[in-house]
């Protein structure tokens, strides 16, 4: 029965003000003058075109909904009301589906492509008409909705939207998806947090003053909680209840058992019971009218529900043991009978009813819906629920497929170890079902994940197993896919010949089977391997492969292409190219919802910033990577950055023993070439402190010999050799040596310094100058180091220079005289780049979705930190200021 249902699948449409069927009078707001004013100001601002976000926070019962309703009651603009439900796992995009019709959007469950598109659609729908959008109960929000809210919050200044969110902030812990949104509210200028305090004794006196209740006692008992106080005030002649629960239950003390059961039914429904279910549930009008009289119920968006969650919880607590399951079953059956099929809601009831079969069906559907909406954490939770309810009688393949989906969602929500565990658990299932193609594919997936997890040995053995199983099963494509994985692993160890041979294998199979996707993949990795060896021409081939992958919708492959391209650009010191690639890569990964690639690429950007002397931005990125769950593989350079920047500045690192953490990672990666930068960092530490780690005097020197002719290792070898030389240790010069390092080791320091200058690496330039014997060059080196803020390194050079009897060694500059180009944050760098391109403040505002006021703020900061007085200077000096 679909023709006449209103408002889509769940028919939910909240009224512009929650009004009970029998809610007596408008609630009088006490002690909320300031908060009411703040909310009304936001509404007025939206009406005149300036958007803002207000997060109303406080405990249950403190009056968040009532306040918000009062603030928007006489709003001159349209008000859209939505909210989140207390489901065991939330509905993806729940609140936005409530208002989709009002925004002129289609049914978000069917049409949702990628989350990024949904964000854009919602943003576009809010851009033209002044709107108040209320989103209640953020603490029950799903991850995708939080992403949309964050998207809106970052751009809210530029649209006429008053986004009012209510939440119980104590329930939003560190791991809660809504945490990010609250963090944004704290940081962003156009967002405000409005905590609601409890009522004072005076307010309580006003509420109960005319009764025989003792205000003092009531205030102590209720803690000033408005809901509780109001409950008590409504029944002044009863003895004081002990708790909110008692107060609520007192209201139902005199109703019939049948009516209590109906109340239980309403309590078992998260949020409310849709009106259309009432016939199927056998709840007649007289019953509703009697229950209305208790004052506990209120109409709620196309249905019947408790007027407050606290009331629902109180009534729910009186459901006798074993009584909940039949209620859920009635609700589940009614939903099915009437044809309302929101999988998230149905899952909730099927689980509550203990109906394993339907729980599996609906949880699987809910998981897929969440997947499409981009709520990967919720999708994983739904798949876990489905798995939990399998009873062992079903096909192995059903379990295997569910676990595979779960593993994939866990990988995407950055829970690598669990993802690996789940996919590994499918191995015996594929075998038992005789599906060897599935088994090979699963091994291949685990190979890649184990590598991201930093465990090379496991990765290699899974890749080999995938190839073996695929060969036996005659699954040529999976075989070829596993060969590409093998190629990737080999290339990471600089085993280029093995890698190229494996790629050729895969390309052959791709051609023979006509598998276009495989052909793109094999071609891409072939080009990447050659690029790693130093063939610059291959950049074009890699870029082409990325473009082809994008065209074919192979998002993860395209993003991987970006990741590899930018990694090698940075390694080979093509720093400006790397910058440009990242400007494409990061938005792409964000748009396509591939956080694990964003994670990796942010780590690469951290290293890029380090090399370009933008050390604050480098630390910013390093912190993001280290604090997010993601792939351990991507943490190497963030650890190094977290160690080297403080070292060079002469301050304590904020990360605990970063080099040792990186060391442990390098051990399990077993990639000797990747360990070289660590040894270089240890050497740098030794040079600065005078305490040389034995890994430097022993292993580092040995590795220079052992790996000296490894193709593609010229940069890492060069950097280590330079430090070993500064320490005065004897070593064998590697035959593989990148150009600037070769120049330095040949004693051509000025030329080396010029090379680094042209490449845009000021620290390396300064070190090359400092290595020279010519005093003028050495002085210039110290000046450069001071300019970078590398105080400790500069001081170290000063020690040497004084010991060598050099006159005119520049003293340490005073703090205030120093400009600090290296101190620009990522955001300020964005603004600076746009300034360098000649954009006006208005144009910068438009491009970055920030207000003119915020732009002015950033522009000032940029001018100060760069030590220039006008934007024209920024344009003219953009090259020297390392903005390109």
């Amino acid at each position, binding site marked *: *029965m679909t*023709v*006449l*249902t*209103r408002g889509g699948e769940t*028919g939910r449409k909240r009224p512009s003000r929650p009004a009970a069927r029998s809610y007596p009078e408008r609630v009088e707001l006490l002690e909320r003058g300031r908060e009411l004013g703040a909310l009304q100001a936001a509404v007025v601002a939206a009406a005149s075109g300036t958007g803002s976000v207000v997060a109303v926070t406080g405990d249950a019962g403190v009056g968040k909904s009532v306040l918000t309703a009062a603030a928007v009651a006489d709003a001159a603009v349209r008000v859209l009301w939505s909210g989140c439900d207390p489901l065991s796992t939330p509905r993806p995009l729940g609140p936005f589906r409530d208002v989709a019709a009002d925004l002129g959007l289609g049914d978000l469950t069917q049409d949702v492509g990628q989350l990024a598109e949904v964000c854009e659609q919602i943003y576009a729908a809010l851009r033209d008409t002044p709107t108040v959008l209320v989103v209640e109960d953020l603490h029950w929000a799903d991850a995708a909705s939080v992403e949309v809210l964050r998207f809106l919050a970052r751009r809210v200044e530029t649209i006429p939207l008053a986004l009012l969110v209510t939440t119980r902030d104590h329930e939003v812990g560190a791991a809660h998806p809504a945490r990010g949104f609250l963090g944004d509210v704290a940081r962003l200028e156009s967002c405000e947090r409005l905590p609601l305090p409890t009522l004072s004794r005076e307010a309580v006196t006003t509420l109960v003053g005319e009764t025989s209740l003792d205000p003092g006692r009531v205030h102590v008992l209720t803690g000033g909680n408005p809901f509780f106080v109001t409950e008590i005030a409504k029944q002044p002649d009863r003895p004081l209840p002990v708790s909110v629960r008692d107060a609520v239950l007192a209201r139902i003390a005199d109703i019939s058992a049948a009516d209590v059961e109906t109340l239980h039914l309403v309590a078992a429904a998260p949020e409310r019971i849709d*009106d*259309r279910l*009432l*016939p*199927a549930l*056998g*709840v*007649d*009008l*007289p*019953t*509703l009218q009697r229950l209305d009289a208790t004052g506990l119920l209120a109409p709620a968006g*196309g249905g019947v529900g408790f007027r407050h969650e606290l009331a629902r919880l109180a009534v729910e607590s009186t459901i006798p043991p074993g009584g909940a399951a039949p209620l859920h079953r009635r609700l589940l059956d009614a939903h099915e009978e009437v044809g309302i099929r929101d999988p998230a809601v149905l899952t909730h009831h099927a689980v509550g009813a203990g109906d394993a079969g339907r729980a599996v069906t609906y949880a699987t559907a809910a998981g897929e819906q969440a997947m499409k909406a981009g709520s990967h954490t919720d999708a994983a939770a739904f798949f876990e629920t489905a798995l939990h309810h399998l009873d062992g009688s079903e096909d192995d393949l059903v379990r295997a497929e569910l676990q595979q989906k779960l593993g994939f969602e866990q990988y995407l929500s950055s829970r690598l170890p669990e993802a690996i565990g789940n996919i590994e658990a499918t191995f015996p299932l594929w075998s038992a079902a005789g599906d060897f193609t599935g088994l090979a594919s699963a091994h291949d997936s685990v190979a890649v994940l184990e590598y991201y997890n930093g465990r090379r040995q496991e990765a290699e053995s899974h890749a080999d197993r995938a190839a073996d199983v695929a060969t036996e099963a005659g699954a040529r494509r999976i075989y070829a896919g596993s060969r590409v994985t093998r190629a990737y692993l080999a290339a990471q160890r600089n085993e280029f010949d093995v890698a190229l041979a494996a790629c050729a294998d895969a390309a052959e199979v791709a051609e023979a089977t006509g598998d276009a996707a495989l052909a793109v993949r094999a071609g891409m990795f072939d080009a990447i391997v050659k690029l790693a060896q130093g063939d610059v021409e291959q950049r074009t081939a890699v870029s082409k492969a990325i473009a082809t992958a994008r065209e074919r919708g192979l998002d993860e492959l395209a993003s991987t292409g970006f990741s590899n391209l930018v990694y090698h650009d940075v390694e080979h010191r093509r720093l400006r190219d790397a910058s440009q690639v990242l400007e494409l890569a990061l938005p792409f990964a964000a748009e396509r919802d591939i956080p694990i690639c964003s994670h990796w690429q942010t780590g690469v950007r951290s290293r890029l910033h380090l090399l370009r002397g933008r050390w604050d931005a480098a630390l910013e990125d390093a912190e993001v990577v280290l604090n997010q769950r993601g792939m351990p593989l991507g943490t190497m350079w963030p650890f190094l950055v977290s160690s080297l920047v403080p070292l060079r500045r002469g301050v304590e690192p904020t990360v605990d023993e970063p080099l040792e953490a990186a060391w442990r990672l390098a051990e399990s990666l077993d990639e000797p070439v990747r360990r070289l930068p660590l040894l270089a960092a240890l050497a740098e530490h030794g040079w600065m402190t005078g305490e040389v780690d034995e890994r430097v005097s022993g292993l580092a020197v040995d590795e220079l010999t052992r790996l000296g002719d490894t193709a593609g290792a010229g940069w890492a070898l060069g950097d280590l050799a330079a430090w070993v030389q500064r320490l005065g240790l004897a070593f064998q010069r590697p035959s593989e040596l990148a150009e600037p390092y070769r120049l330095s080791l040949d004693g051509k320091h000025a030329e080396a310094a010029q090379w680094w200058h042209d490449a845009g690496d000021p620290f390396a330039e300064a070190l090359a100058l400092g290595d020279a014997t010519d005093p003028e060059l050495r002085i210039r080196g110290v000046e450069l180091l001071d300019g970078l803020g590398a105080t400790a390194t500069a001081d170290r050079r000063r020690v040497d220079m004084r010991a060598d009897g050099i006159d005119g060694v520049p003293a340490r500059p005073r703090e205030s005289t120093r400009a600090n180009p290296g101190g620009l944050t990522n955001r300020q760098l964005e603004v600076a780049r746009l300034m360098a391109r000649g954009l006006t403040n208005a144009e910068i505002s438009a491009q970055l979705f920030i207000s003119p006021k915020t732009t002015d703020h950033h522009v000032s900061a940029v001018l100060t930190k760069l030590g220039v007085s006008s934007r024209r200077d920024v344009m003219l000096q953009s090259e020297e200021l390392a903005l390109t």
Partner: protein
Amino acid sequence: MTRFIIEREIEGASSLTPEQLADIARTSNQAVDSLGVPYTWVNSYVAGDKIYCVHETDDAETIREHARRGGFPANVVSEVANEFGPHTAELKSA
């Protein structure tokens, strides 16, 4: 019991097939039965993009409750003040 005329705005109402009308009728009947109060659905007329319904019950709120339960819009609910037809002509006092 009072009689009411209800106007329901439904785009494409005139294109509803007999099967669809049967479905709607079933839903409406179920909604009526679920109310637990005296209620009669007398008849309905589909015209243009609207459905006009004649119902009998005690008050307009019950009409709206029926509409909610059936998932129907109830854009206008009017109490019938009087009903008359060709036969009414004979009642004119001589």
